[in-house]
């Protein structure tokens, strides 16, 4: 099972991990991990959990192998198994060739993988991974995400903190949305989206005759909101008809399927040629913004670029 803690920076994700691992004492409230209270049984909890912090926290002055060996002793890996375990993890995380190099010479992706390997030294039942792909280039981020999928498939529990909603959508079974230290939503992504009641996002790819504004027609219809159109050049490419001056891509949120049907009938009646009517299901990003009281304003072909680090390239996922 994998659980995602999502939220903007400062929402309390890292603090939640620290509290659950028993390295931070709560000022109020309580927590249970494996039935243990982390604030009083921190050592017992940490024997069973592995934590990868937001910054890899690996020592530049040690080699990858020396660092892992030191932590194997700290995690209580049986002495006879330390070398074997360290070698296996270095190999598993593609660090075997660099094992005896100083960590200071490692790339950020390698350091992140080393931190993940360290969190797995004692074969923990539960992993806390705090922003494991933060700051990584796309290739390195994908490699780490693949590792996380692998950990899930091993049957290990994974709690992942991220402000990358696209990553959360792709990897998680359950999400908890945090804001200012409080849980504002929790559940499976699909269930959260279904609970959203935000209507149906629809994208129309069309070609309109001169003098007909598809977006304006949708706005006038009952049951439509947040209607916007793409720039003409982009719309032309989407329609795929060179020189079609009427090409347009319009997106909006329809209240329900009836509203969609009415819109289709209206624009067709006005002489609009419809090439596609695409329904887009709400995703974690919609859930996130809705929970924050700021429903995302959809724009056709948008790349959502909200402030605060919530940046998810949504094209291609829909």
């Amino acid at each position, binding site marked *: 099972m994998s659980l995602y803690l999502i939220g903007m920076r400062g929402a309390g994700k890292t603090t939640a991990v620290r509290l659950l691992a028993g390295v931070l004492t709560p000022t109020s409230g309580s927590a249970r991990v494996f039935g243990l209270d982390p604030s009083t049984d921190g050592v017992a909890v940490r*024997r069973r959990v592995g934590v990868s912090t937001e910054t890899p926290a690996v020592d530049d002055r040690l080699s990858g192998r*020396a660092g892992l060996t030191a*932590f194997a*002793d700290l995690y209580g890996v049986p002495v006879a198994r330390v070398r074997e375990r360290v070698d296996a993890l270095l190999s598993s995380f593609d660090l075997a060739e660099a094992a005896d190099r100083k960590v200071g010479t490692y790339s950020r992706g390698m350091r992140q993988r080393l931190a993940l390997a360290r969190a797995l030294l004692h074969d923990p039942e539960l992993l806390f991974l705090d922003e494991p792909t933060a700051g990584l280039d796309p290739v390195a981020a994908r490699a780490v995400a693949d590792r996380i999928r692998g950990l899930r498939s091993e049957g290990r529990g994974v709690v992942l903190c991220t402000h990358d909603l696209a990553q959360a959508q792709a990897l998680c079974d359950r999400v908890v949305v945090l804001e200012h230290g409080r849980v504002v939503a929790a559940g499976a992504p699909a269930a959260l989206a279904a609970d959203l009641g935000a209507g149906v996002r629809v994208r129309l790819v069309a070609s309109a005759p001169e003098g007909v504004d598809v977006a304006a027609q949708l706005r006038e219809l009952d049951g439509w909101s947040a209607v916007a159109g793409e720039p003409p050049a982009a719309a032309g490419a989407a329609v795929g008809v060179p020189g079609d001056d009427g090409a347009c891509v319009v997106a909006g949120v329809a209240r329900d399927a009836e509203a969609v049907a009415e819109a289709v009938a209206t624009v067709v009646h006005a002489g609009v040629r419809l090439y596609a009517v695409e329904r887009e299901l709400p995703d974690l990003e919609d859930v996130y913004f809705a929970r924050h009281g700021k429903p995302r304003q959809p724009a056709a072909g948008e790349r959502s670029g909200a402030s605060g680090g919530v940046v998810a390239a949504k094209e291609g996922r829909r």
Partner: protein
Amino acid sequence: MNLRALRAIVRKDLSVVLQSKAVLLPIIIVPAVMLLVLPILASFAPQFVNIPGASDLGELLERMPEAFTQRFAGLSEEQTIVTLMLVYLFAPMYLIVPLMVASVIAADAFAGEKERRTLEALLFTPTSDRELLLGKLLSGFVPAMAVAWGGFLVYAVVANAAAWPVMGRVFFPTGMWWVLALWVAPAVAAVGLGATVLVSARVNTFQEAYQIGGVVVLPIVVLLLGQATGILVFSAALVALLGAVFWAAAAALLVFGARRFSRSEILSRS
């Protein structure tokens, strides 16, 4: 107590320390100057007894209490100068070695780890706060005593060898120096550790911790001045008493520091 974890912390910290010039240089240079270069120079002091300033030693001896000057009875002027310098005047300086080594390594082990942002990984290991603190203290204490006692041995050999033409016998170490090395030096190292633990809890860089923690050298400077001016005359008994005072100070600092040392406190302040 998880002894394996303690060993792992000490081994890791020392491996890291040995890679840092900022830590390694003072650990090598200061003991080398104090315990190797100075005793050699001091052994040749009688040859410069007539140069301006050198005769101050004779005047210093005249200001000393009679009980002290009696220790030099039967010694020639040259032997008196060598004994005065190598046995008495350098004694407080020797204490700087364990103090400095303990402080610089502890500053790196506590504040340095915070600065490098590697401490957090250690906090998430299944060690208790007490084990973590003890491991870090040992990381400073073990090398401090290794350097202090190794330096004591070197000093003894160098002092006897260099001063042989003047003394004509093995005159060092004296009983006072045995007390100094075995009783006071560990206490002084512990004081350095205690002060650095306290300071490191409040600062986030190695330099800050090292510089602020450096004020603990002041008691040693006071001892040095007291000895040089004749206000304080080292003897085995006085040195033993000084050791007790340093141990008491170290205990107070370490207990106070240990109370403030918790994962939660460290993370809250970082």
